[in-house]
């Protein structure tokens, strides 16, 4: 019996995974798993994860995985890459970890053009703590810390664009969406190849769903993601 088309690098005993129904993390991680299988790098890589919902992936793969602190996965992964240049080093984090508490480390790693791959999942809020405003919260968006859509008059954070700007296009920067898994897969492939080919820092922001904290049904979840894709343009922003 064909059990599934699950990636081979999945840790089977931890499935079904710990993410909420409808969460975009499972789709992103499955896509990443397919890329890891395709490149046959599961034994040559270290997967670093941040705090927030991403930490639930600490035993997601049969792959060396290190769960770190909030906003700190980038320096840990950088340290691993520094000490072991042949290791494929991938950091996985949320928008709060990357664009708020860990922004300083993210930007400096990009500025140094560290040869690591960073995958950042953007769902416009802090999922693990119950849906508070994040740097990516859109104007007028209702979250548990922006009741009625107030306190959201600032611009949502444009991460890949910022990194592209400060690295003068040297880094690979892209945005994809769980609404288009083929495109997401291609960008994760490119971002990992960027590291393997020694071209430097590679960053993919993934637009993702959080129906639990968005308080949306299926239809409204898809509409929310469509709206996100209008605010955060999907595409390759920069590469050399």
């Amino acid at each position: 019996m064909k059990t599934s088309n699950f990636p081979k690098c999945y840790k089977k005993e931890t499935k079904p995974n710990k993410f909420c129904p409808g969460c975009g993390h499972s789709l992103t991680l499955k896509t990443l798993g397919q890329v890891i299988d395709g490149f046959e790098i599961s034994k040559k890589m270290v997967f670093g994860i941040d705090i927030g919902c991403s930490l639930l992936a600490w035993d997601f793969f049969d792959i060396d995985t290190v769960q770190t602190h909030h906003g700190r996965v980038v320096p840990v992964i950088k340290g691993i890459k520094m000490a072991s240049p042949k290791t494929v080093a991938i950091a996985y984090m949320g928008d709060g970890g990357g664009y708020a508490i860990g922004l300083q480390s993210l930007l400096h790693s990009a500025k140094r053009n560290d040869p690591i791959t960073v995958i950042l999942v953007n769902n416009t809020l802090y999922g693990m703590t119950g849906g508070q405003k994040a740097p990516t919260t859109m104007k007028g968006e209702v979250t548990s810390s922006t009741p009625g859509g107030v306190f959201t008059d600032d611009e949502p954070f444009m991460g890949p664009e910022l990194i592209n700007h400060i690295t003068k296009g040297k880094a690979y920067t892209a945005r994809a969406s769980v609404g288009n898994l083929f495109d997401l897969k291609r960008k994760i492939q490119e971002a990992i190849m960027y590291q393997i080919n020694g071209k430097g820092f590679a960053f993919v922001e993934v637009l993702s769903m959080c129906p639990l904290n968005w308080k949306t049904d299926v239809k409204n979840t898809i509409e929310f993601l469509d709206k996100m894709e209008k605010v955060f343009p999907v595409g390759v922003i920069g590469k050399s």
Partner: protein
Amino acid sequence: MAVKVKAKKYLLTGNEIIVQAALDAGAEMFCGYPITPTTEILTGWAEKAAKDKNLLFLQTEDETSAGFTVIGGVLAGKKAWTATAGPGNILMQDPMSMAEAMRLPTVCYIGQRGGPSTGTVIYSQQEVTLTRFGGNGEGMRIVYSPSTLQELYDLTIKAFEAAWKYRFPTFVLGDGYLGKTLGDVDFHKKPKNYASYPFVQNGEINNLRNTFSIEEELYDNLKDHFKDFTEMSKDVSECEEFMLKDAQTVVFAHGVVGSATKMAVRELREEGYRVGLFRPITLSPFPSKETIRAVKRAKRIVIAESSYGQFGRIVREVLYGVTDIPVHRLYRPAVGIMPEDIVEKVKNISK
């Protein structure tokens, strides 16, 4: 079997000595952020790394990142370390807490400076509590307190050995007086260092975490740490007992204040005062048994430190219920203590 040690005398500053000690202990990677009074350790290592491609160096964007990058290096199997001070020590607690939780060997030199906040930049003994207990945990850390330049060298080497042997975050708690003093020191390259080892890419699949979803699961995990810490303590804890045999007054001091006290004790002895020094070399694990033994025949205790009782609190906790002899305090937060300060204090209370 006695280990043959090749000794050679050098004239160097404390900060230069620390760098040499790290190299002699097999350190391969340093990540740090400039902060007085430990900046020369960072620049000193940078100079070494510029000449030796086997040495890794990164000047990070802050101390938090320095500590986490060190952790990355350690995970990948390098002997990685850092150095910081004061406000940097505060930021360093984020990564050190992770090292404590995941039992990762790390070495961090602390050059204590005056606090709270930015304070002063050269000297204090006010980072005792922060260094011992800085995380949101139980302080499962090894902390050495060197009192001389030679000890700075010897204890830095010991710190690397202890860290990789016992897998607790390990600190060398110095200060800017020590770091910036020029003096002579014997280097001895030990033939064998405790080897480093990778925690990832080591032939197994490692899923490493510091998060737990069930309280009892974390508790079980911590119980193992406590057990290991207690077992390690008897091998690691160290102290100096100086002229204690017939001492009626026992002065407790650590670090450079310990050196000042030693001079004071010598002077007082010449004048006939029966005084001795108890100096813990490890502030964690603390030499508790020896502390209790030290006061057995004493009539009074003096606790001397350049802080407002951070060290005194440890001593008094160990001695609680053991003795009711008077405890005299010579607390001078963020200022130096000279031998004459101790001589005067001992004379006053011996009247």
